[in-house]
C-alpha cells in the first residue's frame, strides 16, 4: 500500500524542523562546495549557469533547493565586479547567498539578475525534482520520485542513483528504481542489458503510465528491447483491464452507497408506510444545512477550540437526525395523516411542501452554495494496487453500511420497530392490540425523515449544499426504492448497489448522460416486467 496523503501538515512541520537542524549540523562541511557551486552563477553565460545548477543540486546542501527556486523566480542576483552571488527573499531584502546573511551596506552597483532561458528552465525543474528526492518528508520523496518517473529527464539520473543508495523505505525505493528505469529506457547510452532490466522493472509497476512509457520508447531503441516492451505492454494491458474493472466496481459501490444513503429514508416512508414523500429530498437538504450551521457555530463561537471544527460532522449526525425527524413528525401530523389511502394526493401535497421548504431555505440562507469543509480525517486518498481510494468515499460507504444495519436493527429488535411492522402489516389488528397507530405513524415518518437528514450530513461532503440539493436525489431515490421492491430494505440495498454499479459501468461506454438515460430506460422496462420491483411483497398486503 503506497501512501500519499496530501495536506499532512504535521509531516511538513517536521520536515522544516529537520531541515533547520541539518543546516546547522552540516553547514561547515558543505559550505565550501556550495560556495564553489555558487561561483558559477556570477556570469551571464547560460552554459556556465547550467553547470552551476548541476553543481548546486549535487552539493547536497540543504539550501540548494531554495537557491535553485530563487533562480527559477528571478530572485537570484550576481555582481560580476565582486564575483559574488546574492538572493532576495519574498520581502525584497538582499542576502549574500554563500554565508546566508543579509547585506547591511549598500547594494553593489552592477547587481544583475542571473538570467535563465528555456533550456535552463528544464534543467531547473529536473534539479528541483532531484533535490526533493532527498527530502526528509516521506510523501515529498514519493511525489518527487513519481515526478521523475513521468518526466524521465536524463540529468536527474545521478540524483536518483544517490537517492536509491540512501533510501530506507522499501516502497519509495521501488518507485525510485522505477524512475531510474524510466530514465534508462529513454537514454541513448544505456546498454541493451540495462534496458531489458528496466523493461522488467516497468512491467512490474504495471499501471497506465507504464504502458504509455513503454509505448513511447525512443526510435533508436534496440529491437530486443522493443520486443520485450511489446510483450510487457500486452501483459499489462489485460492486467490493467482487470484493475479498471475493479476501479469501476469501486466507483459503482461508492455511487451505490450514495444512492442508498439518499433512498434509505424513503425506503421507510414509501417502502414501509406507503407514503409518497416528494419532500424526501428536502429532508436530505435540511440535514446538509444543519451540518453547515453546526460547522459555522464551531467556526465562530468555538473558534478557540479548533478540534470542534474537526468533529463538527460527528455532532451534526444526531443534530440532523433530530431536526429532520421533528420536521418529519410535523409533516405527518399536519398533512399526511389526512391523506392516508390517497397516495396520488399525498404525492401532490408533499411536492408542494418540498417547494415551500426549498424556498424557505433559499430565503433564509440565500440561493448560493454554502461551504461545508471536510475534516482532515476525510480528505486525501491512498492506493491499493492500482486502485485509487479517497477517504471521503470510503467513509461514506462505511457510514452508509452502518446506517443501514442500524436501521435493520431498529426495525427488527426494538419495540418501536415491532410496532411499526405491526401497524404496516395490519393496522386494525395493531390498534386492537393497544398500539396507538397515530403515534406510530408519526414516529415512523419521523424516523424516515431523520435518516434522510443523516444522509444530508454525509452528502454535504460530496455535493453542493444548496436549496436544490434534494431535487437532485428525489428521482434517483424513487428509482432505487421502486427497483428494489417496496417494503423491503434489502431490496433497497440491492437496488442501490445494482444501479450504482450499472451506472458506473455504462458511463465509460456511453458517457455520463447517455449512461443515465440508459439506466432510466432499463428501469422503465424492468418495471413493466416486474411491476413490484426486485423483491415484491407477496400475498394480500400487496393489494392493501
Amino acid at each position, binding site marked *: 500500500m503506497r501512501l500519499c496523503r496530501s495536506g499532512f501538515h504535521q509531516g511538513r512541520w517536521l520536515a522544516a524542523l529537520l531541515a533547520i537542524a541539518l543546516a546547522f549540523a552540516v553547514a561547515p562541511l558543505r559550505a565550501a562546495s556550495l560556495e564553489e557551486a555558487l561561483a558559477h552563477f556570477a556570469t551571464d553565460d547560460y552554459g556556465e549557469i547550467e553547470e552551476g545548477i548541476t553543481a548546486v543540486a549535487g552539493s547536497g546542501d540543504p539550501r540548494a533547493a531554495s537557491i535553485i527556486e530563487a533562480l527559477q523566480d528571478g530572485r537570484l542576483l550576481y555582481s560580476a565586479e565582486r564575483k559574488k552571488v546574492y538572493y532576495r527573499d519574498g520581502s525584497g531584502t538582499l542576502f549574500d547567498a554563500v554565508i546566508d546573511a543579509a547585506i547591511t551596506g549598500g547594494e553593489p552597483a552592477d547587481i544583475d539578475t542571473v538570467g535563465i532561458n528555456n533550456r535552463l528552465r528544464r534543467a531547473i525543474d529536473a534539479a528541483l525534482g532531484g533535490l526533493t528526492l532527498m527530502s526528509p518528508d516521506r510523501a515529498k520523496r514519493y511525489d518527487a520520485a513519481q515526478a521523475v518517473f513521468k518526466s524521465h529527464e536524463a540529468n536527474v539520473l545521478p540524483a536518483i542513483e544517490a537517492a536509491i543508495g540512501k533510501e530506507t523505505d522499501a516502497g519509495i525505493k521501488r518507485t525510485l528504481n522505477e524512475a531510474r528505469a524510466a530514465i534508462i529506457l529513454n537514454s541513448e547510452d544505456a546498454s541493451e542489458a540495462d534496458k531489458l532490466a528496466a523493461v522488467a522493472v516497468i512491467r512490474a509497476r504495471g499501471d497506465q503510465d507504464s504502458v504509455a512509457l513503454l509505448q513511447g520508447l525512443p526510435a533508436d531503441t534496440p529491437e530486443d528491447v522493443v520486443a520485450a516492451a511489446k510483450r510487457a505492454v500486452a501483459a499489462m494491458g489485460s492486467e490493467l483491464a482487470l484493475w479498471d474493472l475493479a476501479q469501476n466496481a469501486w466507483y459503482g459501490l461508492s455511487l451505490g452507497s450514495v444512492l442508498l444513503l439518499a433512498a434509505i429514508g424513503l425506503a421507510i416512508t414509501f417502502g414501509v408506510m406507503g407514503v409518497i414523500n416528494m419532500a424526501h429530498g428536502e429532508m436530505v437538504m435540511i440535514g446538509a444545512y444543519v451540518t453547515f450551521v453546526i460547522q459555522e457555530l464551531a467556526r465562530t463561537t468555538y473558534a478557540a477550540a479548533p478540534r470542534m471544527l474537526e468533529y463538527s460532522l460527528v455532532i451534526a449526525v444526531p443534530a440532523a437526525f433530530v431536526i429532520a425527524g421533528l420536521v418529519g413528525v410535523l409533516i405527518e401530523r399536519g398533512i399526511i395523516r389526512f391523506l392516508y389511502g390517497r397516495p396520488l394526493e399525498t404525492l*401532490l401535497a408533499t411536492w*408542494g411542501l418540498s417547494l415551500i421548504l426549498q424556498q424557505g431555505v433559499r430565503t433564509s440562507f440565500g440561493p448560493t452554495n454554502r461551504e461545508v469543509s471536510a475534516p482532515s480525517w476525510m480528505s486525501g486518498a491512498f492506493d491499493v494496487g492500482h486502485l485509487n481510494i479517497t477517504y471521503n468515499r470510503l467513509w461514506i460507504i462505511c457510514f452508509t453500511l452502518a446506517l443501514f444495519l442500524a436501521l435493520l436493527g431498529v426495525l427488527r429488535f426494538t419495540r418501536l420497530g415491532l410496532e411499526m411492522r405491526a401497524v404496516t402489516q395490519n393496522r386494525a389488528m395493531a390498534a386492537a392490540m393497544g398500539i396507538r397507530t397515530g403515534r406510530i405513524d408519526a414516529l415512523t415518518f419521523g424516523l424516515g425523515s431523520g435518516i434522510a437528514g443523516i444522509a444530508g450530513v454525509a452528502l454535504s461532503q460530496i455535493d453542493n449544499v444548496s436549496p436544490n440539493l434534494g431535487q437532485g436525489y428525489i*428521482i434517483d431515490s424513487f428509482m432505487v426504492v421502486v427497483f428494489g421492491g417496496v417494503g423491503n430494505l434489502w431490496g433497497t440495498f440491492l437496488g442501490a448497489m445494482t444501479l450504482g454499479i450499472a451506472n458506473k459501468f455504462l458511463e465509460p461506454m456511453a458517457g455520463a448522460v447517455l449512461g443515465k438515460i440508459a439506466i*432510466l430506460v432499463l428501469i422503465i422496462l424492468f418495471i413493466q416486467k416486474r411491476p413490484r420491483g426486485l423483491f415484491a411483497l407477496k400475498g394480500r398486503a400487496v393489494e392493501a
Partner: protein
Amino acid sequence: MTALLARGLLPALARKRARAGTGVAAFVVVILGLAVAVPALNLAVPPESPFHVPTYLVSLWGKYACYAMLALSIDLIWGYCGILSLGHGAFFALGGYAMGMYLMRQIGTRGVYANPILPDFMVFLNWDHLPFYWWGFNSFAYAAVMVLLVPGLLAFVFGWFAFRSRVTGVYLSIITQALTFALMLSFFRNNFGFGGNNGLTDFKDVLGFNVQAAGTRDALFGITCLVLAAALTMCHAIVTSKFGKVLVAIRDAEARARFLGYKVESYKLVVFTLSACIAGVAGALYVPQVGIINPSEFAPANSIEEVIWVAVGGRGTLTGAILGAVVVNYGKTYFTSGALAPYWLFVLGGLFVGVTLLLPRGIVGTVRHLLENRRKPEMPDPDPRPAGAPAPAE
C-alpha cells in the same frame, strides 16, 4: 349496491351529467367569444383606447389557452381514468418540438449562417447534412401529422407496455416521471440534433406569415381558442359516452371492471394515447406564440405543476382543468413579474398542500357540489367521496 344505485346514484349521476353539460356549453361559448373578441380588441380598437388589448397580452392569453388544453388532456386521464401521469409535459414538449422543427426549416437563408437547409445550430456544430428525422419538416402538413403522431406513438408504446403489465397508481406516476426525465437529458445533448440547451428559437414565419406580427398573433390566439373549444367538446363527448362510463368504472374499481369483462388495458391505452395527442397539439400551438421550445419543458417539475392546475380547478370536471390552468398561470405571471417573485414558490407550494387538504374537489367541483346540496337538501349525498375522486388507492 344495487339498492344504492336505484335510490340515489343513478339520478344523481344524471343530474350531474346535465349540469356538467350546461357548464361545458357555457365554457365553449366563452372560449369562442374570446377567440373573436380578443383579436378584435387588439386590431380594431386604437391603442389609446382603454379597451385596446396589447399584442403581448394576446400572446400571453394564447399561452394560457395552450396550458388549458394541456390541463384538459391531463384531466381526461387523471380525472376520468385515474391515471396520474407525471410526465405529460413530455408529450406537450414533443408536439412543441415537432412544430418548432417546421418553424426552424421556414427560417431558410435568414439564419445567422444563411444556410438554406441546415438550421443555425447544425451549422455551428459542423453538421454537413440534415439528419433523417428532420426530413419533411419543411412541409406544414407533415409537421402537423408529426405533432399528433410523435406524442401519440410514444404514449401508445409506453402505455402498451405499462398497462399490459398492470403498472398502476404511484408506480405509473414514477415511471412517467422517469420517462420525461430521460427525454429531458436526451434533448439537452447537442448531438441529439434538437439544438441542445438552447432548443429551437428565432422563428420567422409560420405558413408565410411573420410570427412576430400582431395579425399572426391574433390569428394564432383565435386558432388556439377554437382548438381548445373543440378539444373540450370532444372530451365532454367522450366522458359522457358509454366509453367514458367505462373509464370512470376503471378509475373507481379497476379490478371489478376487469372482472365484468372490460378490457381495461385497451380502454386505458386509447384514452392515454388520445390525451397525449391533445397535449401534443397544445405544445404545437404554444411554440409559435412563445417563440421558443427548449429541453426545460421536459423537466419533471413542470409536469407535476401541470397536475396541480387540474387539482385546483377540480379534477374530473374538464371545465375545472381549463379554469385551473388559467387561474394558476395568471397567479404565476402576477407573482413572478413583480417584487413578489421570491414568494411565488410559497404560493405554489401552498396551493399543492391547501388544495389537496382543504379543497379536494377543486374550484369547479366544489361549486357543483354546493349547488347540488342546495337543490336537494333533503337527500344526503350518496357518494361521500369528492366528485371525481378516486376510490382508495389500489
